[in-house]
């Protein structure tokens, strides 16, 4: 069993030595901790900001109206003329690039849950600030639970001093 595991570990040798180190230790290499945190922050901020801009550009009178399936292409063109939606699309592209960069540095089992959870928290905060949505006390309680989960996962991802 151990032999089989070692063999498949060798098969999985990648072209990225730091990514390989993160895979084996389950942690972020200490020398890449700062760029990792910056990339993760950009992923979360750009993803949440894109969500808020999408919501804003598609609400009220701004959203294009579709009356038949033939109207969909016209609605898409009309939607693309909304500047907020264009910014949201650029933010989504940036989110994708930085997400790929974050996954290059860190392990998948760390990046995916932290990104998802932190995006829930950031989107709630941005919706409260910019869309003036009300956030109940119960919802803050749930956000605190998510935050606790992020902190626990975050502690497991710190590289040790060698």
């Amino acid at each position, binding site marked *: 069993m151990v032999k089989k595991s070692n063999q498949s570990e060798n098969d999985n040798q990648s072209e990225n030595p730091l990514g390989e180190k993160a*895979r084996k230790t389950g942690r972020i290499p200490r020398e890449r901790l700062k760029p990792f945190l910056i990339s993760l922050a950009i992923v979360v901020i750009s993803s949440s900001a894109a969500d808020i801009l999408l919501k804003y550009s598609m609400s009220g009178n701004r959203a294009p109206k579709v009356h038949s399936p033939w109207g969909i292409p016209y609605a898409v063109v009309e939607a693309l003329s909304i500047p907020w939606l264009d910014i949201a699309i650029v933010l989504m*592209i940036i989110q*994708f690039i930085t997400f790929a960069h974050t996954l290059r540095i860190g*392990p*998948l*089992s760390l990046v995916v849950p932290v990104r998802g959870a932190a995006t829930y928290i950031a989107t709630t905060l941005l919706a409260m600030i910019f869309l003036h949505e009300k956030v109940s006390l*119960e919802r803050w309680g749930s956000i605190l639970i998510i935050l606790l*989960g992020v902190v626990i*996962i975050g502690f*497991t991802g710190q590289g040790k001093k060698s």
Partner: protein
Amino acid sequence: MTLFAIGISMAIVCSVIGDFLIKQGSQELNEVDIKSFGGIWGLLNPLKLFPFMRQSGIFHNWKLILGIVVLSGHFGGYLLSMRTAPVVTVVPLMASTYIIDAILAKIILHERVTWQRWVGVGVVVAGVSSLVGVSGISIK
């Protein structure tokens, strides 16, 4: 029920496969100095963003491109399940992808996943489920 089952299965499976493809594809990207593109804020300018993407090799990386295609399948499945079931059902089920990702990262990528991380993932899933449970009152 059938449409919901198809939608949620598609959303979960495509999300996990998409994340794996992006993880694998990201290992093959070129190292690019972001400072030569005016830092991260420079990337807000599409005239700098696309040369950056070209230089990092994104356009020739089939795993990343397939990852985007698969993730669009996730989006389609997500919308389908949202049409057929309430948000309170769909979102906690989607949070299960964190657990599936961690299990598969351990089995397929041979990542080291400590028990503390399993606890963290479990707490996040519980938090997401309770967040949607609380929000469900206003959504309905």
